[in-house]
């Protein structure tokens, strides 16, 4: 269909009136640019907002204990209780479809007092007692050494993995880190690894000012015994944690003699639910982007259709001559169709390229001025580009259809008579 001759015919025809071709193409160019930019902006907004969720496995919830609000089995209301380490094993054993159950304990925190020292340097850092699985829930980039292992847990080794923020606070530049000791609340810990947050956005400084130590060591060194501060629970892929969490709560309530109807006793934060809500919002935003972009594109396409109609009108005589020379109606139709298709696709490609350039400029500016709230890395996927191309091709054909039909509607003898 697209032989070299066809190309020549089409390019000649488009070249015959360059300015008009340009103006026509501009409509589609602009439409596709808007479409791609809208989607990229939506994506940027999404990336910005989603980064607040960090990298934490999204199908997760955190649960902690609060005081009871109902008396139960002879126990008064207002009673405080704490999860124990064997609750973890019980949850893993009795509730299916859970991927990770990580008990956690914490020392220090935001604006806390200086709790870590090394030689003459001191700093206030967050200290977490964790199990090795935790790195699967909260991805970390291990820069040197390793993360906590099960032999650390079993032997209750006093080792720690420290973030880049800790390194900056306690070490001089270029100093050897692994194998040194830091003192946490008066207890010495051997540094076995350093990390930074993967793909962190925003609170990077705070995230990396963190020290991980084995959960069992934490209990012994800081006098928590078997107590668990809170748990991070992740469900397997394909099952939402939202659908499982009630089972977990019920199990905890029965193990700690809490009234099954007492909803205040267990506090939780369902990351999955929040995540779903926000991603739902963004799928609507993407849809709006497609919708508005497609409408803008459509006006460009109507422009092409319009101009092609005028072109056909202007070339009525030429078409008559061509038919007298033996052009079949289909030959004429397909030429008009292809002209509109080529025009649409070419201007669409230029539009996509231009939009890509604008996105690149935006990203460069963002990189230079640093993170902006709720907006990061505007981008479009290849899939979007592909969709846009398909829209272009379909609309190019649609734009040419009416003009192509009108081109062959007139009898050749009448077409030849027109001056």
């Amino acid at each position, binding site marked *: 269909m697209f032989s070299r001759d066809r190309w020549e015919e089409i390019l000649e025809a488009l070249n015959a009136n360059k300015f008009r071709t340009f103006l026509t193409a501009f409509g589609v160019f602009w439409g596709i640019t808007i479409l791609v930019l809208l989607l990229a902006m939506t994506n940027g907004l999404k990336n910005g907002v989603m980064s607040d969720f960090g990298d934490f496995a999204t199908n997760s919830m955190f649960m902690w204990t609060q005081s009871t609000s109902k008396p139960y089995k002879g126990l008064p209301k207002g009673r405080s209780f704490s999860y124990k380490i064997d609750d973890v094993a019980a949850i893993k054993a009795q509730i299916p479809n859970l991927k990770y159950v990580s008990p956690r304990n914490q020392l220090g925190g935001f604006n806390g007092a200086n709790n870590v020292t090394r030689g003459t340097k001191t700093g206030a850092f967050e200290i977490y007692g964790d199990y090795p699985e935790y790195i699967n829930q909260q991805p970390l980039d291990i820069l040197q050494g390793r993360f906590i292992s099960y032999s650390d847990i079993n032997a209750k080794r006093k080792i720690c993995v420290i973030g880049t923020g800790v390194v900056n606070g306690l070490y001089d530049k270029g100093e050897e880190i692994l194998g040194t000791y830091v003192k946490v609340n008066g207890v010495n810990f051997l540094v076995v690894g350093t990390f930074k947050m993967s793909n962190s956005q925003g609170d990077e400084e705070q995230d990396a000012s963190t020290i991980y130590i084995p959960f069992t060591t934490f209990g012994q060194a800081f006098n928590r015994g078997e107590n668990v501060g809170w748990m991070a629970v992740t469900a397997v892929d394909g099952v939402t944690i939202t659908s499982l969490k009630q089972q977990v709560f019920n199990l905890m309530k029965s193990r700690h003699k809490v009234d099954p109807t007492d909803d205040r006793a267990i506090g939780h934060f369902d990351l999955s639910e929040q995540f779903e809500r926000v991603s739902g919002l963004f799928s609507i935003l993407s849809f709006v982007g497609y919708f508005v972009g497609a409408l803008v594109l459509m006006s460009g396409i109507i422009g092409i259709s319009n101009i092609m109609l005028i072109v056909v009108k202007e070339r009525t005589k*030429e078409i008559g001559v061509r038919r007298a020379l033996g*052009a079949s109606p289909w030959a004429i139709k397909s030429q008009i169709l292809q002209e509109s298709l080529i025009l649409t696709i070419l201007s669409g490609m230029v539009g996509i390229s231009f939009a890509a350039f604008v996105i690149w400029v935006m990203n460069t500016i963002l990189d230079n001025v640093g993170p902006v709230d709720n907006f990061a890395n505007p981008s479009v996927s290849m899939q979007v580009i592909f969709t846009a191309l398909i829209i272009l091709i379909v609309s190019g054909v649609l734009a040419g259809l009416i003009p192509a039909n009108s081109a062959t509607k007139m009898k050749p003898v009448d077409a*030849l008579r027109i001056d």
Partner: protein
Amino acid sequence: MIQIKDLHKSYHMGSNSLHVLKGINFDVKEGELVSIMGSSGSGKSTLLNILGMLDEADEGQYILDNVPIKNLNEKIAAKYRNEFLGFIFQSFNLINYKSALDNVSMPLYYKGVKRKERTERAMHYLEKVGLAQWSHHLPSELSGGQKQRVAIARALASDPKVLLADEPTGALDTKTSYEVMELIQGINDEGKTILIVTHEDDIAHMTKRIVNLKDGLIIDDSPVEQIRASAHV
């Protein structure tokens, strides 16, 4: 080559109907050079359009090279036009954004001839009309006589059975007209059947036979002593 029997054609405009051809009977043999004359409104252009399959008769028989021409759909008509007929128009009707060579090769393009052969053949016919060195010029860079010669080359390009010329000299001055007629005579000498619609007596007398139309009927059809155009140039 051409056989026409009892051809009728009317045009309908609203409630009025205009009977343009009222039963034309007329044969053309191979190698003839025929001029069709008549005042405006006599039906000569309509006759030529029907012969050219650009228009269809209401009644009657039309046989071209033993092929009956009737009930044509546009696709077949286009094919027949391409194979059997070459058109020469009063206003040349060259495509203004194409070079002379590309204009000439267009019928071959629609015939499906490969590019290389097409260019060769088009070049051959351009040489024949004496415009080889103008092959890459646009029509706007050519004089009227040159344009008509390009158009003649185009009409010849697909090697049709019959050439149909509608007032081929109507837009040219006398000298150029005679040059064009000389070319047409030369082509006829090689055996091509040619029909020319004209209202100029001197042009008509350069053909071999004059058919006179009046009010949709042939009133006179007689061979004439051909005047060679070269005698006037």
